[in-house]
């Protein structure tokens, strides 16, 4: 077998979450209209105020256009060709009633939902297409006053919190995809950590797109009350399909005084095949506000999947002394495209932000780091450190860095470092001379390159992320 054959061979087997689960589902007919929104809202037995919220967002959306500034080549999306609601027919009442086929799906993905089998110390909310199918460890968390449930349940049981915070960080007016999400979001996770509580376990949501021709529009809202602490992890996969599927999520984080939210993502949506056919269009708006003094929000993301990634997890540093962090590893192999980065908006005094972005491109991958650091006029002694490194494998990929800086207060300190490197032939030879295969050598060097970011992930997930990096780069050299 020639080396090109071997590469093809490896690439063709690279995405192992690409299976389809055969269950009966409820669908909304394709298309988007006020009637469809009423249908979704009725299906979910929502209160009137939420329906109004959706309709308002929808009307806004019809006036908006997709952003054109990202450095992405995207085939036009037919928003009327997508079904905006897909749910397993039998809605589960408790974990024991979850369709065994769905449980099996999550088992296959390595996400055991039965509490006794669940990863020790990790509570999971599993979202299958449009609805949440199971949340584990609810009881144990409730004892401490922690609310961790699906968004739909939160609407039903904690309407005041939802009313207060929904859209408070990412308003429907924010952008095209945020407006779309506000109109049609179907489920997601809700977290509330009461004053002074340190959440005793990792909270995790696992998103799975299963149905064909559907989009996924989930909504996540996390509120950390004064002096509380929570670490949250999001994972996702989808079957391999030839059409592109749309994922447009909104995540809002609110950290009150002295609170800390750590939000980690391992994004492994189906990236499309080696020729760039199929794959998820991932348009996500993630933003957190450090509302109170000395609060902290930390985003860590490992982006290996999706054919298109458009995503800028951001922090509004409003409270004095608040801290924002963004640690990112993004891989673009084959024909994947990513335009990703962060915004750090310093409003309070002595606010501090750190950005570490590691981009890896291979094949025909294209990647742009787009970062914005804004220092408001009242943000005395604000500090930002940005480090932005790109690693190229081969000659057919591209990496771009676009940092925006806006400083309205002279007492601030900003540092920016950027590097672009290629995996050198001398590095590969050195590793191979010590007995490592070329693939292992690449993985080793890539892991070394990403280390600063990977070490930010919770332990259990760092291993998973490392494996994903390897799979994503299989056949990238040779």
């Amino acid at each position, binding site marked *: 077998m020639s080396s090109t054959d071997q590469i093809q061979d490896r690439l063709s087997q690279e995405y192992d979450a690409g299976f389809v689960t055969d269950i009966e589902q409820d669908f909304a007919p394709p298309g988007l209209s006020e009637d469809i929104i009423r249908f979704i809202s009725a299906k979910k037995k929502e209160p009137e105020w939420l329906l109004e919220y959706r309709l308002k967002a929808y009307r806004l959306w019809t006036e908006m256009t997709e952003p054109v500034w990202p450095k992405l080549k995207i085939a036009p999306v037919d928003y009327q060709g997508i079904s905006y609601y897909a749910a397993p027919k039998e809605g589960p009442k408790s974990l024991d009633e979850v369709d065994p086929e769905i449980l099996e799906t999550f088992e296959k993905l390595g996400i055991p939902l039965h509490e006794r089998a669940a990863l020790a110390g990790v509570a999971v909310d599993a979202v299958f297409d449009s609805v949440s199918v199971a949340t584990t460890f609810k009881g144990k968390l409730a004892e401490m006053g922690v609310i961790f449930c699906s968004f739909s349940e939160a609407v039903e049981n904690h309407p005041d919190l939802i009313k207060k915070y929904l859209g408070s960080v990412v308003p429907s007016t924010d952008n095209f995809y945020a407006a779309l999400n506000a109109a049609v979001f179907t489920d997601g996770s809700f977290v509330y950590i009461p004053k002074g509580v340190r959440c005793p376990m990792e909270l995790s949501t696992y998103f799975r797109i299963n149905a064909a021709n559907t989009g996924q529009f989930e909504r996540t809202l996390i509120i950390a009350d004064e002096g509380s602490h929570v670490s949250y992890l999001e994972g996702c996969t989808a079957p391999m399909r030839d059409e592109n599927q749309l994922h447009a999520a909104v995540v809002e984080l609110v950290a009150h005084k002295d609170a800390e939210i750590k939000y980690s993502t391992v994004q492994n949506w189906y990236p499309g095949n080696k020729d760039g056919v199929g794959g998820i269009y991932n348009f996500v708006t993630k933003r957190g506000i450090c509302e109170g003094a000395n609060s902290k929000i930390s985003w860590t993301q490992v982006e290996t999947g999706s054919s298109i990634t458009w995503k800028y997890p951001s922090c509004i540093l409003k409270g004095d002394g608040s801290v924002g962090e963004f640690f990112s590893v993004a891989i673009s192999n084959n024909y994947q495209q990513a335009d990703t980065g962060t915004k750090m908006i310093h409003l309070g005094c002595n606010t501090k932000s750190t950005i570490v972005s590691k981009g890896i491109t291979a094949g025909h991958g294209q990647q742009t780091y787009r970062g914005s650091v804004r220092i408001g006029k009242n943000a005395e002694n604000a500090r930002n450190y940005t480090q932005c490194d790109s690693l190229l494998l081969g000659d057919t990929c591209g990496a771009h860095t676009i940092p925006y800086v806006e400083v309205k207060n002279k007492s601030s300190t900003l540092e920016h470092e950027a590097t672009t490197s290629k995996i050198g032939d001398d590095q590969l*030879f*050195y590793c*191979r001379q010590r*007995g*490592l295969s070329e693939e292992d050598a690449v993985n080793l060097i890539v892991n070394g390159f990403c280390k600063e970011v990977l070490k930010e992930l919770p332990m259990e997930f760092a291993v998973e992320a490392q494996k994903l990096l390897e799979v994503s780069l299989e056949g990238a050299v040779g």
Partner: protein
Amino acid sequence: MLSIRNLHATADGKSILKGINLEVPAGEVHAIMGPNGSGKSTLSHVLAGRDGYEITEGKVTFDGESLLEKKPEDRARAGVFLAFQYPVELPGVSNVYFLKAALNAVRKARGEDPLDAMDFMKLAREKAKLVELDDGLVKRAVNAGFSGGEKKRNEIFQMAMLEPKLAILDETDSGLDIDALATVSKGVNALRDKARSMLIITHYQRLLDYIVPDVVHVLVNGQIARTGDKELAKELEAKGYAEFTGRAVS
């Protein structure tokens, strides 16, 4: 152990090795000396399988098998080790992690079980002591920010860990201070073994006072110009290469 017959190699169309003949029996230490640019590093690269050279003629057998068709990692696994003249930095990759992966790849090829973390660390500490490599360096990223001398020490540490059958040391002495030279040489001597051959490339007789070679070769313009015993190195030290290059030293 190693047998090189009429080896010719070019790089970018430039002829560098022009018919090298060399026999290194098991257990022997051979030194290669020669002027800058004569092809010493090229020979070491060709033996280790680095890309970018074209072998136009000749044959190399190692341990009874033809070497030149093999991939670099397969040569390494078969027991060929090259201590680089310019060791490469691998930022973010810890020495320990790197070496464990390498050692287990080599062990696998030898049909041995992989070492677990505990056994590996035990072995690493023992071997680090041999060349007096600082514990801190063992844990740092491979060669990243190491001083010139530390890099060279690290190469010999790796060699001690991997226990090759053939060790090629390309100017391991350059960049070492006087004390380090003695320590590293001691480490190398400890690895001398009747089953292990060594090819030591150096410019200085000084190293050969510590690591006494069985045979000394002079490589000039891509060919072995003369072969002798350790006295040959002393002669070169005194007279230079004028006799071989035809150029007088003023």
